[in-house]
């Protein structure tokens, strides 16, 4: 056993840290925050191209595709640092679609997309959810009909978060309309400026934007089919296994801000740091963050050993997402009345960060698979309990 990073790992991560410190500007951090940390903003794109030039966007990829052939451990460490430092850290192409392309797509697609992805030049938008396909992905109904040279696509997607800033749609569509539902899905890469695509904003309670994407007789060239037709569900599931990680550096940072606040604040003449209730609350958060860290890196350790996390990824996701909600609520309890003030209020505590995150964390236990779905996975895959 060993619970520290190697010197080599520390060296790389300190370079990353150094780079971010030097290259990230307040404007970039502001843009990133306003985009809810997704990739695609103007400053974000500029920054990430420089960042990715070091191979840090997809460090675990082979060198031929712009990676560094680095360990998953380092990949996770870099991701943690990215989330911690407030630069864009939610990537669809680099961190969701890429591995699937590498494993299943045609050489033509690989050649066209993988290097631009790892260099941070292009971004995808996730195109999974539909009005009737949420937790139950197999409920998806968007149709792609084989018309010889192309597929004709019609239907509606929803909660496609990156669509308004991305270049391509990483689209799951139904290509077979009878037979078992899981044998009729296919994956496509679609230009988001294709004629017939309409993108409509959906605004969240954290003021962030996600989108509805409408397909009205959109022609998608055959060569943009990923892998085999009707194998899409398999790719999706495999991708989830490989890709599911939930870095939480931003929550670590939020906690640090809370800790500073507790150390500095005096209420009614008493430092609140002396209050046993607050001490317990802060210590509990610190403890859970430590547990989350150990879960997080356990995934990369497994991957580096050639094992595929499945229930473990569900566990880490659930644990971190629950923790984010506890952190937001506990922080609010500690901040008291000042906590309810928004960032542009003169008396806001910690620049309104908790007010903002209190709204944001609502979605954590929902997106990317609800807690309920994750717990089903843990029980069934992790413990072998039978399906109903």
């Amino acid at each position: 056993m060993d619970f520290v990073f190697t010197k080599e790992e520390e060296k790389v991560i300190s370079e990353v840290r150094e780079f971010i410190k030097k290259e990230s500007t307040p404007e970039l951090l502001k843009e990133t925050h306003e985009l809810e940390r997704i990739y695609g903003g103007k400053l974000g794109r500029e920054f990430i191209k420089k960042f990715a030039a070091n191979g840090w966007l997809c460090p675990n990829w082979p060198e031929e595709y712009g990676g560094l052939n680095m360990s998953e451990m380092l990949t996770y460490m870099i991701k943690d640092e990215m989330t911690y430092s407030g630069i864009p850290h939610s990537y669809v192409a680099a961190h969701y679609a890429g591995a699937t392309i590498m494993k299943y797509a045609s050489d033509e697609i690989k050649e066209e997309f993988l290097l631009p992805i790892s260099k941070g030049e292009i971004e995808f938008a996730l195109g999974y959810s539909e009005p009737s396909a949420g937790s139950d992905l197999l409920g998806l109904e968007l149709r792609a009909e084989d018309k010889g040279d192309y597929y004709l696509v019609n239907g509606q997607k929803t909660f496609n978060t990156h669509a308004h800033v991305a270049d391509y749609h990483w689209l799951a569509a139904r290509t077979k309309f009878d037979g078992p539902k899981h044998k009729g899905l296919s994956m496509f890469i679609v230009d988001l400026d294709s004629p017939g695509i309409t993108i409509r904003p959906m605004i969240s309670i954290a003021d962030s934007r996600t989108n509805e994407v409408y397909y009205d007789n959109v022609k998608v060239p055959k060569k943009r089919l990923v892998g085999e037709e009707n194998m899409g569900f398999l790719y999706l599931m495999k991708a989830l296994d490989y890709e599911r990680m939930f870095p939480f550096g931003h929550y670590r940072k939020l906690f640090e801000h809370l800790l500073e606040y507790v150390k500095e604040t005096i209420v009614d003449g008493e430092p609140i740091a002396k209050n046993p209730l607050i001490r317990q609350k802060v210590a509990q958060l610190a403890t859970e963050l430590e547990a989350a860290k150990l879960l997080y890196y356990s995934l990369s350790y497994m991957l580096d050993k050639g094992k595929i996390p499945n229930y473990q990824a569900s566990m880490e996701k659930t644990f971190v997402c629950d923790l984010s909600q506890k952190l937001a609520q506990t922080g609010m309890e500690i901040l008291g009345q000042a906590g309810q003030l928004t960032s542009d209020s003169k008396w806001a505590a910690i620049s309104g960060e908790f007010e903002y995150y209190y709204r944001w964390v609502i979605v954590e236990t929902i997106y990317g698979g609800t807690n309920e779905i994750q717990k089903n996975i843990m029980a069934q895959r992790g413990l072998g309990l039978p399906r109903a």
Partner: protein
Amino acid sequence: MNYDLNTEQKMLKDSARKFFSKEADSIFIREMAKDEKGYSKAIWKKMAKLDWMGILIPEEYEGSEMGLLDMVVLLNEMGYACFTGPFVPTAVLGVTTLLEGADDKQKKSILPKIALGKKIVTLAWTEESGQYTSKGVNAKAEVKDDSYVISGTKLYVPDANNADIIICAARTDSSSENSEDGISLFIVDAQNDGLNVEVLKTIQGDKLCEVSLNNVKVPKENLVGEEGKGWDILKKVLLKAAVAKSAEMIGGGRKVLEMTVDYAKQRNQFGQPIGSFQAIQHHCADMLTYLETSEYMTYQAAWLISEGLSYEKEASMAKAWVSDSYHKLVALGHQVIGGVGFMEEFDIQLYLRQSKTAELAFGDADFHRELVAQELGL
């Protein structure tokens, strides 16, 4: 024991439900959150016509003298509609403070105007610490000739931006070791020189304000109760306001449960309504339990107050329990409704915001548990 509302209360409840669903739909609620004033004068007038401002006001001052339990019935519906504005500051905070401390002349001059909807009143208690403690009151009031001169900064003052009168807590004496001594309450005209109000932006968009007082002159006769004895008044006001706030929360909680259950019945996944999944059923069952216990706790406390019985322990229990329960109830509702509920356009978010500000108002759960501990003799 009797768990039912009486006929008048049921009528009040029904008419309030109808009123708010007609006058204040969720689009209106969203508008008010962004609106500078945060309330509609037209609706205010209609509410006054229904005699709601005067529910706590004795008949001799033009009120209907119904009592806190009736007020709770109304506030329950206000919370159900997620309705905000200067009603609670005026008709609960303002009225209660005056009833507990003011002399007949003061009451005569203000209460009838409140009852008729002609004056908006609020109470400026907390300051930078945001704490409802005696140590939290540090604004100073000094005697100068026939006046008191008040200076200090009051924070989180509800609807001070709309108020005609701000009842202000300030320290007239700092010499005592006991911080509860030396606090006095003053009726301050909001138009007074040296008084400045700024709205603070909150998660709900309700109008909590910063009230800066810079040598504000107040005539001596505007002192409420005895000089230096304001804390005795504030303690009572705190608990009554906490129960009133609990009433808003149970109303909101009822609405959230309804939204959630409706959604769970209609939303299909995996070929069946999600409400048929055990995990969802258990979330909803927990929500129901939080709600019904919260209702009982709130009504009991309000009833005790209305009857003039001892209410301190039960009022603090109610605010502690309801604050925690409403928070958990809303979180479960969001979890059931999922992604759709994360969108601005679905109404549950209004209640998420309401639950947070209500949790903090007039003492949060930890604060009131500490009061419960004191009531238990600890």
